[in-house]
């Protein structure tokens, strides 16, 4: 990677696209390299700390690095290294963002560092691609990532594995940046599997807990099912294009239209396989089962990896492949269908979960479903927009939940209680103890519920609106399907408002169900944790104002143009998405700009949806505040009906266990015990034993009597002589 920076510094080795000659990205290699350096430094700390810890464990005790009130160097350095490299990377990204903005880039800038894989028919460069899409992702990853790193400093403060945590986190950011900056599918795949690895390591961060490391393993294996799809898609792409690079005159996107027939089998196969990969990474039905389990990791990890960045990689990949998806309407319908189905299923499950992180996990799955719906209906900008706003408010929700859990944990720890610190039934009334957290969480809740003027309103509304608009496109072969999607999406949006309100009510309102002794120990999180929350809250409020269609700006939504809103993101991403949009319009005709079935324009439906969401929130507040919850220990699981199905997550885990895991395990055992040990080795041993048997029979002729031997010898001589004499 040092070469990377060196190569970046050498003029002329960089940009390939001639149009972009006027803009040289500043040290793009270092954006990737910094987190990697952070990882190296933190892992050194981690290994040093682990050596001490292991020595203590071997001696029969536990290592307390904070004994005597002093933090060892291994636990102070990561505080500065971890967030520090993120801050630098974020600043570099900002600098480049500013430069790119000023340059009005048409073509992506590709920076090649070295040749990675090269054969006579395949060349893959270790190269990064800077364009508007990757820039947005880089900003989200480094920006939100930085805030979460800072939050982690407070959250993980008392953990023995503190340096290891930051090492993993930095490594994750490194791979995530490779994913979003990679100049081709192969490079993207490095990041793709790399973030999967980090996710595995971080979910199983407390690896001595069997359940947690099981969850990490599950995440990795399910992700690998998706990776299989990605791999095969790459094979098809390679066979069709002879390259895996995105940009350039030989790249996939420049030749997509010429090489692949629109709606053809190849492009459909490619896009569906890519969707399989995306479904694995972004937890879409039916591969969503790992994400709720992934909540076993530390909460900031859930915020960073399982809400803001990694799980959105699938959306990024679909948006990145927008050219291909635009050519495959069937795949798009499938993508949108999976998205909306996931959104609905996850939202229903979230209704009946009691673990605060599980609710958020399912809410993430559900929101990811919305993003896929957006990508599926060709609203790639909207999908990325929702990705961005979701990164803000969902990171905020997770971090807020983290603050709550942190506080609960400390309080319960003080009293020596073993109550579940994450179960909302054990919470209640926390608003008095955690003012800041309470406020910012409400902001995020309103944002995710789609209430004006919070960020989620604009992004989610845009997705739903595009679904409606494309449903009415003149020659959309799947128009009716899009109509169904639209209705389901609307319903799901209302469900979202309900379960999020339920979360807030159960956690912060009503009477406290926290153990009596522990209540007094509940307190607001330290400033290192609240400041990131506040920043994210601001983003959750105003983050949506960067992409408001002009029609809405001019309406009551934008206070008739007086609020500082713009359609900036749409214009910004235009160089990336315009091609796909063109293909789509050519295939389906223009979107109808009016809702299917009932009609009505964008402004009207925006108002309807925010009003409906607001009504649901208000109604939920009334309804749920009146309910009495009992602590988890006293509560019984829902015993019947839909509630039970939802509580058990539609039995997906059980289903997969019965239909996939157990049969494969059984087949494996059968292969081993029967095929290997009995059939193959049985044959092999039979050959051996048969030889032995034959030898034993032959040995019976060995009487040990020299005379017999002489006789047999004579017989032999006779035979040979006879042959020599008579058979000449």
């Amino acid at each position, binding site marked *: 990677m040092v070469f990377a920076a060196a190569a970046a510094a050498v003029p002329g080795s960089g940009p390939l696209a001639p149009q972009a000659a006027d803009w040289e990205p500043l040290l793009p290699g270092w954006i990737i390299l910094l987190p990697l350096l952070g990882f190296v430094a933190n892992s050194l700390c981690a290994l040093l700390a682990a050596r001490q810890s292991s020595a203590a464990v071997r001696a029969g005790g536990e290592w307390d690095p904070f004994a005597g009130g002093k933090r060892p160097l291994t636990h102070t350095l990561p505080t500065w290294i971890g967030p520090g490299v993120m801050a630098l990377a974020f600043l570099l990204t900002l600098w480049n963002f500013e430069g790119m903005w000023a340059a009005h880039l048409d073509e992506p800038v590709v920076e090649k560092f070295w040749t990675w894989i090269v054969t006579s028919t395949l060349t893959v460069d270790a190269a990064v691609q800077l364009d508007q899409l990757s820039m947005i992702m880089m900003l989200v990853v480094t920006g939100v990532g930085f805030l979460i790193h800072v939050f982690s400093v407070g959250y993980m403060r008392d953990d023995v594995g503190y340096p290891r945590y930051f090492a993993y986190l930095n490594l994750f950011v490194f791979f995530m940046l490779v994913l979003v900056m990679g100049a081709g599918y192969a490079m993207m795949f490095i990041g793709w599997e790399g973030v999967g*690895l980090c996710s595995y390591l971080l979910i199983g961060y407390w690896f*001595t807990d069997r359940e947690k490391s099981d969850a990490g*393993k599950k995440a990795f294996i399910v992700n690998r099912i998706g990776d299989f799809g990605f*791999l095969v898609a790459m094979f098809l792409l390679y066979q069709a294009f002879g390259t895996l690079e995105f940009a350039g005159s030989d790249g996939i996107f420049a030749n997509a239209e*010429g090489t692949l027939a629109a709606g053809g089998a190849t492009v459909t196969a490619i896009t569906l396989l890519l969707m399989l990969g995306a479904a694995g990474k972004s937890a879409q039905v039916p591969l969503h089962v790992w994400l709720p389990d992934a909540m076993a990791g530390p909460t900031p990890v859930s915020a960073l990896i399982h809400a803001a960045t990694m799980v959105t990689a699938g959306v990024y990949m679909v948006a990145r492949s927008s050219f291909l998806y635009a050519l495959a309407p069937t795949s798009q319908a499938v993508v949108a269908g999976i998205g909306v189905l996931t959104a609905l299923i996850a939202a229903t499950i979230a209704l009946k979960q009691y673990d605060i992180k599980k609710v958020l996990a399912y809410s993430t799955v559900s929101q990811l479903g919305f993003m896929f719906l957006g990508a599926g209906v060709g609203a790639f900008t909207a999908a990325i927009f929702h990705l961005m706003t979701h990164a803000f408010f969902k990171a905020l929700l997770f971090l807020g939940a983290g603050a709550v859990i942190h506080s609960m944990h400390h309080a319960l720890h003080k009293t020596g209680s073993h109550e579940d610190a994450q179960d909302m039934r054990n919470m209640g009334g926390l608003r008095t103890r955690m003012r800041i957290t309470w406020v910012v969480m409400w902001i995020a809740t309103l944002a995710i519920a789609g209430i004006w003027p919070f960020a989620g309103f604009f992004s989610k509304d845009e997705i739903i609106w595009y679904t409606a608009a494309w449903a009415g496109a003149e020659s959309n072969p799947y128009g009716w399907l899009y109509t169904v999607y639209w209705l389901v999406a609307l319903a799901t949006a209302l469900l979202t408002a309900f379960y999020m309100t339920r979360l807030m009510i159960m956690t912060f309102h009503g009477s406290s169900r926290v153990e009596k002794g522990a209540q007094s120990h509940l307190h607001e999180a330290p400033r290192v944790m609240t400041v990131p929350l506040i920043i994210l809250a601001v983003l959750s409020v105003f983050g949506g104002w960067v992409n408001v269609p002009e029609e809405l700006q001019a309406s009551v939504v934008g206070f008739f143009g007086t609020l500082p809103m713009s359609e900036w993101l749409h214009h910004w991403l235009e160089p990336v998405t315009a091609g796909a949009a063109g293909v789509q319009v050519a295939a389906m005709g223009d979107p109808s700009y009016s809702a299917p079935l009932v009609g009505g324009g964008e402004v009207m439906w925006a108002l309807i949806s925010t009003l409906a969401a607001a009504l649901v929130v208000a109604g939920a507040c009334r309804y749920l505040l009146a309910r009495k919850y009992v602590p988890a220990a006293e509560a019984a699981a829902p015993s019947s009906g839909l509630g039970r199905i939802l509580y058990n997550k539609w039995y997906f885990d059980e289903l997969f266990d019965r239909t996939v895991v157990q049969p494969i395990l059984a087949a494996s055992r059968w292969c081993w015990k029967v095929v290997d040990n009995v059939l193959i080795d049985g044959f092999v041993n039979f050959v051996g034993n048969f030889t032995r048997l034959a030898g034993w029979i032959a040995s019976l002729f060995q009487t040990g009597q020299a005379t017999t031997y002489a006789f047999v010898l004579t017989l032999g001589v006779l035979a040979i002589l006879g042959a020599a004499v008579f058979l000449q």
Partner: protein
Amino acid sequence: MTSFVASIPGLYEDWILHALVWLPVAGLVHVLTTSPERSKVIAFRWSGLVFLLSLGLWWAFDPGNGGFAFESSVPWIEAWGVNYSLGIDGISVFMVILTTLTTPIAILGSFNYIRKRRKAFYALMLLLQMGVTGVFLATDIFLFYVFFELTLVPMYFIVGIWGGERRIYAAVKFFLYTAVGSLLMLVAILYMYFSSGVDSFSYEAFLNAELTMREQLWLFAAFALAFGIKVPIFPLHTWLPDAHVEAPTPGSVILASLLLKMGTYGFLRFLLPFFPGASQHPTVVTVMLVLGVAGIIYAAWVAAVQPDAKKLVAYTSVAHMGFVMIGVFALTVNGLQGGLVVMISHGVSTGALFLLLGMMYERRHTRLIDDFGGIGRVAPLFATAFVITALASIGLPGTSGFIGEFLALIGTFETHAVVAIIAATGVIFAAYYMLPMVQRVLFNELDKEENRTFADLSRREMWVLGPLVALMIWIGVQPAPILERMEPSVQVVLERVEEGAMAAAAEGAVEDGQLADASGRAGPPSTSGPVDGLNAAPATAPAPARTTVPTPGGED
């Protein structure tokens, strides 16, 4: 460094190959004449010296046009046309470096493991090194066969003397299994020598042997059985788990890293070029690909349910070798190169895994996965090395495993898409067998008191694992220098196969009727299958002709 080595070409390239073969023998003599206590250090120094010398190959070796370099030949048995001739090309150079690297590491890794008859052990290790190096360097078939068989003897004793409880069974099984195959190969070699107008045992002479399609198929079968057992291909693999489990750590390392490679190397070096017609025969290709894929999936499944960690890793070897087999029989540049990289990567990562398992065994005297748990808490360095190695083994991008599997699969996809897709499920099953083991050994509760005193890596063990771990990452990040060096030789093999197939097609056209009744089982008329494909591909463009050229206007 480059200029330095290049400045003495007349020197280095004259002696290096002979030195690589014979220096271990000198070391062997030295080991035998020293005391048991000193023997391990002596053996390590000799093999280390060989490794340092072999490093020069990296700079001195110029792939050129893909033929043999540094060739030298001395008559050995003139009456039979047998020569002691050595040479190196882009395929063997990495195998040789892998050999010279693995041996000192295996020796270093055995310092504490081997406690009885140390002199004999280290002497046998050096003898093994000599044999394996010879296999990779020999350009005379007779010489090759001698080395090929020579490796059996030391391995037999290493398993049989220093092995575990069932060592005798394992050693005998290993010996007989492989001997059966190689004897058939000997018959095939002799047949080629005596009945196809060949007047010497040299590689070139055998390349020019004139064989009918029917002969090719039979000879192919004999060679394939010999090498297939060595590889091992499913279902000829059952000697491997037993041998691995019973062998002492260094034995397992050498077995996995090097001896298996002799099989795949044989496929590349001898089978494809000698019998191009048979290698292109659709039935043959189908059978080999199906066996390769079956190996990948089957071995992964069986590995996943093994209670014995060493057996698990042994089965993963079968799965990895399956990738090599499909890569080779895809008959594409990417496939062959991928297969070669898988060979290197497997040598490094599986060797390291066996070393790690050996360290576990030294500490706890058990190989059962269930006897461990929570090791990560007491041995962080060990755990780190273990995780990185496991990830390289399951082909995570950025490690060596990925490069090989990716290329092998993409190369297979070019000609046999379905096979590649089924084989690609191997990436899922790789996680399915490896991660549970990692978890059950390193993670989970540290609930067994014995594991609490599990020592972390010693300095020596760091030196054992360090180079391997570094290599896994280095190859994963920067494989281009390796790929570039092996490419010309791979092209030579491919061209040879394609030329031979065309020749076979021409011959098939002439004696079609004769062949039809001659080898009805193999069905020669179907040779027209690949041949048509070849004729369709322009003969002017050597190998890359197989890539689909994007045609504007769509292909659906």
